[in-house]
């Protein structure tokens, strides 16, 4: 054990929200140079605790000590003055301003006319020192998600942060970018800075941290040295039970062709994500996984296959019906279900109730509608059934969806889409950002659909997920479908090989 006094100490933090207690007498300690992983399911109270630390929330009870001194943090500006900075999941950057402008924006002790050149030079110094490559004159709008995160980190370093808090930093990153981030954090801690990062991915806990604190339902479950624990132990602590890392799946017995895509191309501004002559087929009872780094046309593929963007060339046939150029409603009527990648913006309507969100596909048909009038009782019964069957945890049908946790929002979408599904299910990143329990539920449900004879297109960035669930795996790169691996060939390294542009089947 370290005998130094802790750099940061949070003591007995309590934070209530309407209906939930986000933090229930939580303690937290951080030594200088620590990388502490805050691990827990969605809604475990990780973000709330950190928001208390940076002054976004005021705790109902509890105290915060920095270097053994009691501090009062009423706003992010207070936290910044104490050297505590947080990088949120949603980046706080202004797209039509440059990197340098964003870095100094909102800084407290700014002269009336700051010299951007000085700022740019200092940014270059920091970026060289930490190997954070960013052009200070670039506009944020021109940067990728990974680059934007670098800007956020730069901004905090520029402002002299000593404790950096990262909220789910790798959720949006490619594997390579995650690796780079790990290096940056190590460099920082070797210089005496400390970091806390919020996550629910075991792999990251093991790779990034030296200490891990497990939270569940607003309480601390355990604090461990990363080196002295295992992912399995952490997973058990997190959900309170043994987690299945494998999915039960019936043997592969494909039926008739459900989806037949020929030479599908789309128009688009971005060369990288425009679809280029995609050919693919999915049969009944088959999951076709699509691997690849996000932004290589996966979203366009999902949108083209649900009628949201028209193809410029090629054809889409679903259940022997030519769907090319048809509107989304035609796809829905033909039994196509879609779990979109962005569950808040595309998959659900936060300001409407859970009940209404669940009926958003069914409302068009009897018994939910009669002569254009919605039938309250049948809708209520239907919603009640879905909430029960899919174990959606919500205070009531009337609760607005935006008040649910990410996992329960996704379960709501899943329940609606699976209930309405007749033949083809398109799922884009269905488990992204979900905790272990919800991930398992979502994956299990999709595999169950496949077992019942549904054709599934599964878009994902997580190779484990793809390997576990898919019957065939294709790789997308720069808008093209490179090749499709089957059976024995579905392996980590082989998929990786295809992602680098080599197709193993071509040798045979």
């Amino acid at each position: 054990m370290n005998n130094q006094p802790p750099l940061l100490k949070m003591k007995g933090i309590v934070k209530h929200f309407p209906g939930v207690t986000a933090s229930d007498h939580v303690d937290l300690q951080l030594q200088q140079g620590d990388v502490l992983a805050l691990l827990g399911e969605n809604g475990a109270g990780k973000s709330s605790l950190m928001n208390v630390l940076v002054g976004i929330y005021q705790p109902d009870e509890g105290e915060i000590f920095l270097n053994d001194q009691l501090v009062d943090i009423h706003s992010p500006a207070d936290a910044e003055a104490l050297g505590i900075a947080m990088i949120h999941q949603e980046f706080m950057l202004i797209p039509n301003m440059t990197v340098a402008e964003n870095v100094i924006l909102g800084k407290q002790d700014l002269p009336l006319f700051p010299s951007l050149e000085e700022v740019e030079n200092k940014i270059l110094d920091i970026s060289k020192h930490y190997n954070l490559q960013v052009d200070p004159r670039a506009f944020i709008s021109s940067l990728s998600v990974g680059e934007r995160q670098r800007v956020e980190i730069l901004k905090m370093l520029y402002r002299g942060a000593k404790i950096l808090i990262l909220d789910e930093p790798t959720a949006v990153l490619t594997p390579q970018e995650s690796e780079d981030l790990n290096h940056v954090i190590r460099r920082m801690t070797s210089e005496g800075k400390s970091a806390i990062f919020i996550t629910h991915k075991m792999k990251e806990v093991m790779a990034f941290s030296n200490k891990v604190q497990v939270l569940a339902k607003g309480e601390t479950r355990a604090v461990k040295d990363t080196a002295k624990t295992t992912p399995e132990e952490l997973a058990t602590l997190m959900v309170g039970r043994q987690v299945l890392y494998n999915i039960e799946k019936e043997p592969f017995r494909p039926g008739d062709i459900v989806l037949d895509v020929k030479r599908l191309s789309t128009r688009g501004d971005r060369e990288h994500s425009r679809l280029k002559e995609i050919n693919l087929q999915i049969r009944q009872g088959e999951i076709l996984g699509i691997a690849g780094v996000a932004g290589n046309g996966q979203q366009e593929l999902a949108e083209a296959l649900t009628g949201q963007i028209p193809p410029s060339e090629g054809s889409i046939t679903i259940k022997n019906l030519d769907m090319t150029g048809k509107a989304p409603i035609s796809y829905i009527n033909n039994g196509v279900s879609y779990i979109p990648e962005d569950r808040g913006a595309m998959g659900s309507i936060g300001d409407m109730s859970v009940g209404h969100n669940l009926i958003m596909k069914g409302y068009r048909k009897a018994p939910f509608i009669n002569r254009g009038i919605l039938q309250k009782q049948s809708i209520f019964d239907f919603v009640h059934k879905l909430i029960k069957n899919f174990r959606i945890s919500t205070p009531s049908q009337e609760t607005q969806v935006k008040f649910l946790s990410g996992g329960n929002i996704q379960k709501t979408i899943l329940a609606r889409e699976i209930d309405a599904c007749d033949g083809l299910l398109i799922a884009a990143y269905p488990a992204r950002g979900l905790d272990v329990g919800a991930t398992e539920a979502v994956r299990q449900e999709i595999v169950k659909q496949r077992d019942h004879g549904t054709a599934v297109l599964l878009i994902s960035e997580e190779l484990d997920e793809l390997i576990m669930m898919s019957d065939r795996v294709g790789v997308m790169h720069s808008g093209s479908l490179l090749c499709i691996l089957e059976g024995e060939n579905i392996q980590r390294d082989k998929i990786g090989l295809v992602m680098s542009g080599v197709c193993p089947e071509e040798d045979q």
Partner: protein
Amino acid sequence: MKLRFEKRLEASHLSTILVPLASFVISLLLGALLLAANKANPWQTYHAMFMGSFGSLYNFSEVIVKATPLILTGLGVALAFRLRFWNIGAEGQLIWGGIGASVVGLFVTPAQGGNLIYLLLAIMAAMAGGALWAGIPALLKTRLKVDETLTTLMMNYMAILSYQYLYNGPWRDPEGFGFPGSRQFSQAIWLPKLVGRSTIGIIIALVIALVLWFVLTKTKWGFELTMIGKNPRAAHVLGVNSNKNILVALLISGALSGLAGGFEVLGVSHRLQQGLNLGYGYTAIIIAWMAALNPLSVVLAALLMAMLLVGGDQVQMIMRLPSAVGLVLQGLILIPLLGGAVFSEYRLRFIGDKKDV
């Protein structure tokens, strides 16, 4: 003990009634201060305002005369706002309703005679006029993404100028002794009277409010409109055609304001003349917000505004206060009401040592 705002998980039904009431009381108290500062007795003034609105059947009929166009334009604006289509062109749509009705009144209906069919025709023409004036910005928005706030606002001025041109120029009554305005319509197409100057327009307006409430909250189409209003992207993914629905809803929105204009010329002035651009279309925006875009609440808000308008005139006449006082009182009513809306979404909680109850 601490006080704290907390967001409500579900909208409180009780508070939607209590909050406006409490706000209204606060408004009256604020108004009393203002009146006292002007050396007017607040009690007497409020009494005069109240009597001005309710003191006699005739006075109350004046409230109805003003409430009718306010309800209709308020409904039109509320419908558009529910889709986040910022239609601030109710004023122009109302005027074009008046122009539409006048076309039938002046050129289709015989100068003497005619019958109920012509009245119905004139009403339909009024709705068509309003729908046209709202349809243009709706098309521009859905086809070309032209900002609707600008187009609807600018088209108000176009509407004002066009109707002024018509009654001053080509449609001017040659036997009008120099007064600007068209000739009077045949009595056969005057909107039937109720009491005083009020007409059956109010009944139609109330029925429309009820129907619109039903459509918006109980039907498939209303559900789709809510989806579009709350999250157009998700609505699109879920197969709802936003552009088509926005266009249809805006045609209805314009038709409602057009109807208000039609009732003005068919029921009040019986000719096209000045006085269509009294600002009902702008007051309608305030009414729509006060009513939280709920058609039934629009009726109440419109009645309140009509009372203030009529009562304000009384203040001027009886209390000999400047007419501006009436306007200031209106403003004073609105500020607490809009500010009070926060209590419908949030609740105030006392935080003590106790844990969550």
